[in-house]
């Protein structure tokens, strides 16, 4: 097992951006077209994370022209240029698949705000 981890080590991205389930994220994904390379941004809610190590993936869901679109990215893919957290979500579960059955306002995730204490 030790050796397997060493074999994977070179494929694991360092200084990864931290984000959680329910966060709205912008994934900057490199796309290679022939010889040119450009960056495409996929913005949506992170609804799931799976596996660990190099096999870790996360799923981002967005509504595009009234059609739900989901895309699963390998977390450590070298094609991911950057992951930006737009807004933190307040959720109570690890998989937000219930969002698939919701439309309109119900499909929103509440925003996580700093906790207000009595003094404030």
């Amino acid at each position, binding site marked *: *097992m030790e*050796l*397997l981890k*060493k*074999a*994977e080590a*070179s*494929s694991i991205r360092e200084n990864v951006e931290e984000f959680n389930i329910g966060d709205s994220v912008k994934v900057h994904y*490199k796309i*290679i077209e022939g010889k040119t390379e450009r960056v495409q941004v996929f913005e949506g809610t992170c609804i799931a994370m799976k596996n660990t*190590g*190099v*096999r870790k993936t996360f799923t981002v869901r967005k509504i595009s022209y009234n059609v739900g679109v989901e895309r699963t990215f*390998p977390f*450590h*893919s*070298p*094609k991911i240029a950057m992951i930006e957290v737009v807004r933190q979500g307040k959720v109570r579960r690890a998989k937000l698949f219930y969002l698939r059955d919701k439309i309109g306002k119900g499909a929103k995730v509440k925003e996580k705000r700093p906790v207000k204490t009595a003094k404030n």
Partner: protein
Amino acid sequence: MIAVIGKKVGMTQVFSEDGSLVPVTVVQIEENVVVGQRTKEKNGYDAIILGADKIKQKRVIKPVAGQYPEGIEPCRYLREFRDYGKECAVGDKLGVELFDGVGFVDVIGVSKGKGSQGVMKRYGFGGGRATHGSKFHRGMGSTGQCAWPSRVFPGKKMPGHMGNVKRTVQNLEIVRVDQENKMLLLRGSVPGAINNMVIVSTAKRK
């Protein structure tokens, strides 16, 4: 041909330079020692004997221990390789560095034992219908003709023991040679269970 004795560590995946995921098997290659040599004059053929995985002297019975030349520790695995592609003398140590610049390898291992299995799993027979009143599900069907030949031909595929046999996988691409950790990353799968001994040699047909 260049070959060494290694150990299957397991499978994982790594990203290639263009960003695609590559399934790899990690094979650990600890130092192999040249234990003996066969020569044309003496034995009628050229070969070297490689040993891997050292064991304690006291765990070896004396008749076996006596075969090792002086100064060489006994090994768990001994294999003879004919017409070795590298000049070596008794006591030389070989390792992963032999595979620097090699593109493809063949891997020999003993496949996982599956026990007694039917023809569908063992040979990929089609089987019969599961439903609609069918009474023929996973059997092998007819085993031959009638009056002639009045017997079943030898070699007929039938249920029986599956797996636990020596298998060779050819032309596995070397993804990485890791000298520091003494391991090879090979694209694809390798026969056998984890911790099994495997023999990695340069590809015969490439």
